[in-house]
Every structure is written in C-alpha cells, then in structure tokens.
C-alpha cells in the first residue's frame, strides 16, 4: 500500500474495516471515490456522519431512530399487547414489509454467541424483561433467526419471561434452514408468523 499518497492510504484503511472487504477491493473503492464528482463524495461523507450523529436508540423498543420514541412506538393504532422480539433493526423492516403484524417491536441488537464474546448482557435482554414487567403485554413473539444462536437466545428469553403472565411464542420454521430473517421473502415470513408455536 506504500507509495500511495497518505490520504488514499487512509481511505483504503477505512474501507478495509468493512466486512468482506480486503486490501484489493478497498483500493479499488478508494480510487473509485477519487473519480467521483465532488458533491457526490460530500453527500457520501455526510451520510456516514449522519448515521452516527443523527441516529439514536429508541428508549422503548431499542430500534435505531432519528427521534426517540420511534415512529412505531408512537403510532397509537398499533396493538400494545403483542410484542415481536427481533435480532436486528433490519428484521423490523422485513417484518413491516409483510403488512401482517400490527403489534410492537423489541430489537435485541444481536444474539447470544459465546464464540463471538456476546453474552446475554451484551444485547438488549434486560431492557426487554423490564418492558414486559412494566407494561401490559399479553404475547411475546420471539422472532430471532432460526440458527443455533437465535434459538439459544429465544430459549434464554423464554426462561427469563416464565414468571410473567405473558404467552411466549416462537416464530414457526417455515423459514429456509439457516436463513436470516432479513433475507426471508414476505410470504414465507408471513406464514412463519402465522404458524408460531407456544414455548
């Protein structure tokens, strides 16, 4: 990488911090940026800055939002008594696209994975338990991913929620094996929601 002017080297290093980007791709991206019109580059930089400065976590559901509480939590037409627990903000989007779900969400920001050093305290489980304990919720739908870590997280939560008077259900596994919720198509996801079973 030596030999490039310092600003390019720095940009290449930044691109390499992204998942799946090696030195070659990073260099290609960096030189592409060089060839872009300046306003485009500034917009790009601004968008990057905005995701840090303008976004925050919703104080109720932990989803990322510009304004807390988020629009879903503020929407009075939604059913307070059904809560859907997902791993990532992207999963909220996937669920919303089905137009089948009219309850509220809780975003965990990950799943329990000892191999990656993620324990129950590193995701928003405590916030979830507190929310279930203090609000009037009848059903908690665990819609974590149908992989080993998502299953473990669902089970961990269902055990914590035992003392509360709520029905805990797990989204049905009509989902493709090992698939992330984010990639499931709307019909499959809607069916999975419909066929959920009690834990």
């Amino acid at each position, binding site marked *: 990488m030596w030999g490039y002017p310092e600003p390019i080297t720095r940009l290449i290093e930044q691109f390499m911090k992204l998942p799946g980007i090696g030195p070659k791709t990073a260099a290609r991206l960096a030189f592409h940026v060089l060839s872009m019109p300046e306003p485009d580059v500034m917009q790009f930089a601004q968008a990057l800055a905005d995701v840090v400065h303008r976004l925050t976590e919703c104080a109720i559901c932990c989803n990322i939002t510009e304004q807390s509480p988020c629009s879903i939590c503020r929407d009075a037409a939604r059913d307070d008594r059904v809560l859907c627990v997902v791993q990532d903000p992207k999963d909220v989007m996937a669920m919303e696209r089905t137009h089948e779900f009219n309850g509220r969400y809780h975003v965990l920001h990950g799943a*329990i994975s000892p*191999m990656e050093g993620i324990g129950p305290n590193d995701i928003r489980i405590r916030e979830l338990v507190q929310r279930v304990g203090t609000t009037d919720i009848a059903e908690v739908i665990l819609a974590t991913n149908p992989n*080993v*870590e998502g299953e473990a997280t669902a*089970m*961990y939560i269902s*055990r914590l929620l035992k003392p509360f008077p709520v029905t805990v259900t797990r989204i049905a596994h009509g989902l493709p094996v090992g698939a992330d919720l984010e990639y499931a198509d709307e019909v499959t996801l809607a069916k999975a929601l419909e066929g959920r079973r009690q834990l």
Partner: protein
Amino acid sequence: MKIRELTLENFRNYEDQTVEFQDGVNVFIGDNAQGKTNALEAIHMLAVGKSHRTARDPDCIRAGQLRAVVSGAVTVRNSQASLRVELTQGGKRAFVNGLSQAKLSDYVGRFQVVLFAPEDLQLIKGGPAQRRRFIDMELGQTHPSYLYHLGKYQRTLAQRNRLLKQPRVDWDSVAVFDAQLALHGAQVVCRRAQFVRQMRGYAREVYRQISDGRETLDVTYQLSLRTPDTEPASLDLSRVDDVRAWLEEALDHRKDADAAAGHTTVGPHRDDLAFTLADQPVHVFASQGQQRSIALSLRLAEIDFIHAETGDYPVLLLDDVLSELDDHRQRNLVMSMKEKLQTIITTTSLAPFHGMLHREMRLFHVHSGIITG
C-alpha cells in the same frame, strides 16, 4: 450404476486421457507411481465431488496447470447422465448434463462409488474420529438431512465449549445450548445407530464369505460414556425422544466434569464404532490379516447399504488391496462382486487374478500418466 467413460484433463499426472470401461471387472495394471490411484481418485471425485485422499482440491491439478477437469458418462438406474467436475486454484464447479450445480450438495448422491484402499485399515486400527468420519461420509451421501443435524450439533457444541472454558461458567447460558445440543445430538446418534444396525448384517455376511465362515463379525454403535450414571440399562437408540432425554440428563450429570475439562465430555462427538470377532474386541485380539478383512467387509457392506437406500449398486473401486488379502479370499471376493456390479481394480501384478478367465476382465496398462487399453 456404471461408469462408461472417464476423461481426465490436467488431473494429477494425466494430461488428456479418455478411458472406456466395460461392465464387470476392469483392471488397471502398472508399476508404482504411474497413476493408478490417481485414476480411481478421479472417479471418486466424479461421484462425491471430493478426493478421497486430500482435502485440498488444487493438489489434484497437474503441476504447472491452472485447471483440472474430470468428466464422465455414467448410467444410473437405466438412464444416462454426463457428470463433470472442474477444479481451479480458486474453487470448483460441478455439472450434471452440462448444467452447473449451485451447491455441491445438489451434485452428490447421483452416482455412487465405494472405494477400498490400503489406508482403510485405519478404520480398525485408528482412533474413533476416523470411524465417525466413515459414518458421517456415508450418511452424508445418502441422507443430506443428516448433515444438517450434524452441522447444527457441531456449531452448538463449539458455542457450549466456549462457555465451559470461561473461568466462571455461566450455567444459565450453557442450559440454552444444552437443549439444542440434545435435540440435534439425538438425531445424529439415532441416524448413526440406524446406519450401523443396517451395516451390521451386511458386514457380517461379507466377512463370513471372505473368511469361509470361521468367525463371526459384529459391529455396534457405541455411546461415549457407558457408565451406569449416564446410560440407563435399556436405552433404545431407535427412539429419538428417549435419546434426547438421556442426552439432556447426561449433559446435566456431567456438568462438573465438563467444567473441569473445559469441554463437553458426552455426546456423539465422542461416540465410536466397536468391532468384535467371535465376541472378542478386534483391536486387541485380531491379527493384521483379520483386521484387513474386517475393513474390507465394512466397505463391501457399504455396497449393500447403498443398494438398499438407492435401489442401485455403486461402482466398486479397489485400490491395490487384492495383493494384501490371501489368495483364496480374494478370489471369492472378486468372483462374487462381478456378478452384480462394476468393479475397477488397480494392481501391480496379475498374480491375484490367477484362475480368473482373462477374457472376463478388461485390462488397462498404466504408465507415466498414460493409459492404454
């Protein structure tokens, strides 16, 4: 199943070679290091998409070349198919009738082979991991859903073991992995046990044939911990729910031992295949010759297993093993095989075929990467 034609392009020491096989017995004869095993490896690659002797595909590409291709025409249950596997430094692609297959698992399972090689003695002499691998390979080929449970089991095990390595073990977290470990572990145990039950009868019969019925071979699936505290006297390995409940209990029972060891000490990742000859454990009592016969019986039992599962016989590949079995048994074996399936044999001499009519077999001479009919 039959292989009609095999073409090798830049595969191992072959540059561009086509071979046409006959039904019945085909023999590759040649000195050492001429390419006999390489040819069988190519047929194995065509069937399984993998080499039987290296996990590194590029090893199979001819030195100095960028790409190796193995292609062949096969007959499976009276229909013809063309198969093709291309290897490059970066990866491999598999084709069926010219159509590229998205995943290797879409490719395998069409055309099946059973390969017996001298290294197979390790199935008897080696450690439990080699025997588990034997089962996993076979079940993976005939039952792809087995690999789903095995993969989940292994992933869950890795997560659980990571928790056990922490200075203060968080048992609440361990517990949520235990449920999945028992779920997938029970599937793995029951499917393996079922496989071994099927293989048991076949292997016993084959062994009886090649040993003239003097000793009885027995093969059983052995759980890792056969102590009274973890295994109930009558655990039925055909009942998934029972095995699951037992595993869950055993995991709980072994908590302290697991924490002390820093890994999980019970489960199918520790199980084994046990062989006995006339009720004596084989690894202690059997002679080298008997051990070799048992390894061969196990491979030949795979033939019957594949036949039972798919309705068709696989192609049998015998690499340099005939000279290691005594004359009488070899003859019995070869004579019995050629009736029902296509066999491809490598050898350095024709001595083992003494007494066989030479017109019954097709002979190929192998010399420095060139095969002549």
